[in-house]
């Protein structure tokens, strides 16, 4: 096996990773998951390292997940939430990042509402940059935790089919997952109203449909997405009830799927809009497993980028 070494690398997107590299990361996760199951959930692996969470966009799950991941590895984790108001003080992205760099951060975890910001910062910063979500572009750690969850539940990835439903156009989760799943030999179908399926998506190697009831029948896992009204400057469907009628994962719809189908959601959920409460809480749901695995996957990543091989 060729030597894969992530030390000092950026993680800007799934796009930059090979199938082997993705599998290497997934294979590194189990020992870190085990740490989180101990009574004392802390190891000294990254003692003396500084992780900075630089979030230009609100986040609970991802920021907390990175924070816990860092702390369980004994790194010092600093959270910086940059509200839009302080951006208007005039400091540029580059200056913000270089100031943090000057304080000797070992890794910068960045989230921003604009696509490409982690790439911009990575050009200036010698230390690793992890993309924690950039606009509608990528959210690579979410895709990795989703793949890990699928692998854990399905045993294998290749050959299985995932149906991603909802606001595909605005979703960085969909993009990263599409790329990652295709690289690992999975079939991907994206589904949503035509107004939420971006131009050219079928050229990314995925199937594309607006018929949820038909598409759900072949899926081994169904990933529901929230409508990201904050990203669209316009209304892409007539009304929420009409949207839900067609694209809400209800118990009735779920009965059309194969038995053993997995229900996923990257959160935050809008119960009753894209997912019925009883489905979100049902037996098929692995939504909270995704969250649990998110910590382990991020621990593994911080370890691979900062310390180990």
């Amino acid at each position, binding site marked *: 096996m060729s030597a894969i070494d992530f030390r000092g690398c950026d993680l800007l997107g799934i*796009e930059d990773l090979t199938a082997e590299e993705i599998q290497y990361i997934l294979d590194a996760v189990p020992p870190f998951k085990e740490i989180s199951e101990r009574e004392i959930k802390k190891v000294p692996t990254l003692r003396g390292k500084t992780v900075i969470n630089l979030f230009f966009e609100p986040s609970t799950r991802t920021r907390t997940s990175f924070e816990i991941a860092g702390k369980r590895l004994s790194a010092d984790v600093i959270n910086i939430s940059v509200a839009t108001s302080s951006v208007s003080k005039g400091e*540029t*992205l*580059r200056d913000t990042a270089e100031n943090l760099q000057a304080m000797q951060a070992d890794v910068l975890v960045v989230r*921003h509402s*604009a*696509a*490409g*910001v982690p*790439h*911009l910062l990575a050009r200036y910063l010698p230390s690793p940059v992890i993309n924690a979500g*950039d*606009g*509608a*572009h*990528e959210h690579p750690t979410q895709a990795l935790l989703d793949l890990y969850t699928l692998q854990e539940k399905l045993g294998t990835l290749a050959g299985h089919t995932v149906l991603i439903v909802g606001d595909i156009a605005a979703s*960085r989760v969909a*993009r990263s997952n599409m790329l990652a799943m295709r690289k690992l030999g999975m079939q991907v179908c994206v589904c949503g109203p035509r107004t939420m399926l*971006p*131009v*050219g*998506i079928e*050229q*990314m190697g995925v199937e594309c449909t607006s018929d949820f009831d038909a598409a759900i029948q072949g899926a081994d896992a169904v990933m529901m997405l929230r409508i990201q009204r904050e990203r669209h*400057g*316009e209304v892409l469907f007539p009304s929420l009830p009409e949207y839900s009628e067609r694209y809400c994962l209800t118990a009735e719809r779920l009965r059309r799927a194969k038995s053993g189908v997995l229900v996923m959601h990257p959160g935050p959920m809008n119960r009753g809009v894209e997912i019925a409460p009883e489905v979100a809480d049902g037996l098929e749901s692995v939504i909270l497993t995704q969250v649990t695995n998110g910590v382990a996957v991020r621990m593994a990543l911080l370890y691979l980028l900062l310390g180990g091989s």
Partner: protein
Amino acid sequence: MDILIRGGRVIDPAQGLDRSMDVWIADGKITALGPDLQVLPHYTADTLRILEVQGCVVTPGLLDMHVHLREPGFEHKETIATGLAAAAAGGFTAVAAMANTKPVNDTPAVTEWVLRRAAMVHGTRLFPVGAVSIGLEGKELAEIGGMHKAGIVALSDDGRPVMDPRLMRRAMEYGGMLELPILSHCEDHELTAQGVMHEGVVSTALGLVGVPAVAENVMVYRDIQLAALTGARLHIQHVSTAEAVDLVRRAKAQGLSVTAEACPHHFTLTHEAVRGYDTHTKVNPPLRTAEDVEAIIRGLQDGTIDVIASDHAPHHASEKDQDYTAAPAGMIGLETSVGLALRLYHEGYLALPDVIAKYTVNPARILGVPHGTLRVGSQADVTIIDPEHSHEVEATTLRSRSKNSPFLGWRLRGAAVATIVGGDVIFERL
């Protein structure tokens, strides 16, 4: 002092000229044109400068009919002086400067001020373009008659579309009365919305909001219809889509007075260049697909596209050093235009006289300015081009105050080696 340009290949499409001959310049005019012009013995080094230009092409002074010089108002990006210096270095003896300054060139006072500033430079000539509407707001007609008197050569709200079709109609009627062409930035901004690059597989992969090709096409169609209605002279700026090329082709076939320009970046780069989020690739209209590039090249070949213009749009480094969505659109182009256009010659798409026509006689006719020919008696605006001059595009050697070019680091073959305005050599690297 007289100038004798000796031994070059003279290409003047206005006269259908393409052969080896000499050009004599005296008192700011072209005074003789012919093979082996004799130098009478009374001339000395103080009264005659001889430029030996074997291997070079001698053409009428090039005209870039679409530039943004940013002054007044945005002097941190460019000034009239630095912009005209960049123009001279790019081989241009004249440019048409768009009106989207601050204040906007929508009154005779601004037109006169711009012309005065340009006159102080003693370099490349500046033809001011006046705004269609007050403040480029697309609501009321600007002082078109007054600006015409002050010296504008065309009307344009460039940078913004004229969204209101009725206002556009009136501008065409009123401008047509004064024989001012309308230079139209065709973009339906409702369809553009928040778009920052071409809408397609690349915008989807990058998670950037796309600008569909139809945002341009519908406005090209609308303006052609309005030109047919009003009889106005319509010039479509920076054509970027295959369909727009086709619409212009059909309008010309119908005998309408419609012309079009293409920018070097639109026949050189595709939307693939945006991968990596280099904000130097952000431009409006955006870089499109390979099929669009091919269609533009075909349009240049068959004469559908009359003009090559740079849409030189300087932006300060700090403005471009932002995320892709926040960065302003536009790239500089005056100093790379000829080198990029000559790629079409070197790759066999266009003959040299066809390239030269798109920089000389064609834009001069569209703007109705006494420019673009080496006819004896005309003003001595001459560009000498070495089509083989190999050079790397480097930020340090660009004269423009801004360096926002996606072509930095490119090696280009062909460049202007001397630029002469009114008989004065204003730039040379002979």
